């Protein structure tokens, strides 16, 4: 005791250093979550393609799960304390898209890549030199053109064959959403809480003014019969006239604060099936809504937040929760059926191709292929970080 008193000054100093180091180390490992990306899976010609959490684009045989090729994406580290290595992998968030013989991927390094689907060889990169702002949303493809928004708030239209810029349009906020195209109109939501309607030929805005909500929009709009359906962080779902941008209806009674009120963000995109919209919320529920008037048909409780966009198959809607539970909702009676638990967290969008649902889990990284009719697991492939 007496000895400790004598060196008290030293101990206070030591304590200060320990706290500083703890905070620093906490910052080093805990400056937000570790960045890994959440690319979904796309499929074409018997193969599947996705971005791994290790920053690789991987091509696999859709039947056997055998790896065909793997292309790593790396970028030089910006330095710092030494928490990061000299070369770091590029996180890939958007789901890759296939058009003809090329696979298109947008990286968090602010580049769009075109890769040969057969060999994994790079065809072109946009921009040719330097980097744009990071890409979190995915690409939309339409008749030989690609469309994507960056977190710098700029929407780019590129020639799919050459990677040449067709037009670009600056919006007022970051873009994390994947655009959707209906006819000659591109719809995209932004962090400035607005939904834009843009002429895909000229890059000019179509509505008199963008439709404004009270929260950021990162979900992909759904368009059907001239109506755009969109969900927002403000906990509302909106139906808009696709031509004018005028509001048709809005779900829900947030102000009433009832038990049917969404509690958290709508991160995942809405899914439309037979005049019903299924919208998963971070409050662990799926809101089933009538497209005619925006009334709530039912709520489906899943027990864990949903950030991954569900998919609709012939008569089911597949939904995966963040903690790795996967369900299908029977569209006849809107009852949820729980499927075997997946290993790992699900934040990537689900995809459905040729009667199969694909799920990409992170942390314990796996790719699952489920039968779209029965939900039975057809394939599960662990993804190694080679």
């Amino acid at each position, binding site marked *: 005791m007496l000895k400790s008193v004598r060196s008290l000054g030293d101990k206070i100093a030591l*304590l200060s250093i320990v706290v500083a180091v703890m905070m620093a180390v906490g*910052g*080093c490992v*805990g400056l937000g979550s570790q960045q890994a990306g959440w690319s979904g899976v796309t499929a074409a010609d018997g193969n599947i393609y996705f971005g791994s959490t290790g920053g690789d684009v991987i091509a696999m045989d859709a039947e056997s799960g055998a790896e065909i090729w793997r292309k790593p994406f790396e970028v030089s580290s910006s330095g710092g*304390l030494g928490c990061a290595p000299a070369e770091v992998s590029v996180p890939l968030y958007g789901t890759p898209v296939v058009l003809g013989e090329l696979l298109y991927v947008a990286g968090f390094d602010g580049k769009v890549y075109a890769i040969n689907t057969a060999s994994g060889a790079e065809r072109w990169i946009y921009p040719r030199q330097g980097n744009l702002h990071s890409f979190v949303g995915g690409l939309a493809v339409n008749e030989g053109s690609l469309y994507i928004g960056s977190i710098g708030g700029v929407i780019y239209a590129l020639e799919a064959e050459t990677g040449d810029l067709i037009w670009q349009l600056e919006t007022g906020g970051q873009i994390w959403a994947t655009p959707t195209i209906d006819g000659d109109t591109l719809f995209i939501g932004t962090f400035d809480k607005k939904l834009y309607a843009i002429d895909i030929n000229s890059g000019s805005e179509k509505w008199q003014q963008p439709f404004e909500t009270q929260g950021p929009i990162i979900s992909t709009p759904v368009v059907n019969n001239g109506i755009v359906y969109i969900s927002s962080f*403000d906990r509302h779902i909106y139906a808009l006239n696709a031509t004018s941008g005028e509001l048709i209806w809005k779900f829900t009674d947030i102000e009433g604060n009832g038990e049917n009120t969404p509690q958290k963000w709508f991160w995942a995109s809405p899914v439309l099936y037979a005049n019903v919209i299924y919208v998963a919320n971070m409050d662990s529920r799926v809101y089933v809504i009538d497209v005619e008037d925006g009334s709530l048909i039912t709520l489906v409780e899943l027990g864990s*937040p949903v950030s991954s966009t569900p998919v609709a198959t012939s008569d089911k809607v597949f939904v995966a929760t963040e903690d790795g539970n996967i369900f299908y909702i029977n569209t006849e009676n809107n009852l949820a059926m729980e499927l075997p638990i997946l290993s790992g967290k699900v934040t990537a969008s689900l995809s459905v191709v040729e009667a199969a649902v694909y799920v990409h889990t992170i942390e314990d990284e796996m790719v699952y292929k489920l039968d779209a009719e029965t939900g039975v697991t057809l394939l599960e492939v662990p993804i190694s970080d080679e």
Partner: protein
Amino acid sequence: MDIGAIWDLIILRPMINVVIGMSDFLFSNFGLTIIALTIVVRGLMYPLTRRQLRATKAMQSLQPKIAELQKKHGKDRQKLAQEQMRLYRESGVNPIGCLGPMLIQMPIWIALYQAIIRVLAVNPESFLNLSRYLYDWPIVYSALPLNNQFLWMNLANSDFFMAILVGASMWVAQKMITPVTSDPKQRSQSQMMTVMMPLMFAFLALSFPSGLALYWLMTNIITIIMQYFTLGGWGSLFPGREKKKEDKRDKKLKTRISEAEAVTGETSATEADITSEQLVELKEIEPVEGGQTDAGKVYTTSPRRTIRRPKRGKSRRSKRR
């Protein structure tokens, strides 16, 4: 429920939602929010900080006497320890008095730090993770995302100039409370601390988002201000200036004593012979909870009161009348 979940529920979640809610009143600007929140939290913690600083200062003021004791009983460890304890007891100084307030404040500082990191949401995963901390207050949903642009910085990126400011401000804060000691070993340790901590934080600020650096900078500035007013000056930062101040005080005091002696015609040898060092010593021993010296006199922080005016005879003012 594990301790992490309890921490999140009771401290971190409220802090994060307050950060976001406050930003709504500050133009959704995260830079202004960090500044305001740091001021508010440090302001609320001020009574504890003041106790901690005063206890530290009181400990420092005993350093010359401790050095003397070390010189005197250096070889006899037990005796030295006994004498030190006696010194602390007689001076009314609690040797671990500065630790309590510091430990109480620490969870708040850490929560503030964590809240800033989480709200900064430097990558998509962090932003997604943020949603689990949000209350269903409309203000929270409308305020996000916060504007990370502040002055010349994007608060989500590191900034070289901010790193320099963090290092410089921390050096000033550290230097102010560095004890003046004649012991070369202690002096070198103090000097090392004064240099190492600012260097380390400047280095960290270079690697971390400048929003965090802004928080450290504000913390340092507030610490400097609190130290200035609580400890009554720049401390060891400008020792010359402090010495001048003390000399000035001594001079005034001696003038007053001379004047008093001239009035009474007596010389109070014990009082007049009190040196500047002793005056400072007397002044600085007392601040903790009205401690008493071994002579049984209660001293205060004001040197004016350390020497009483002679009671016999009339004061000069009353004589003039």
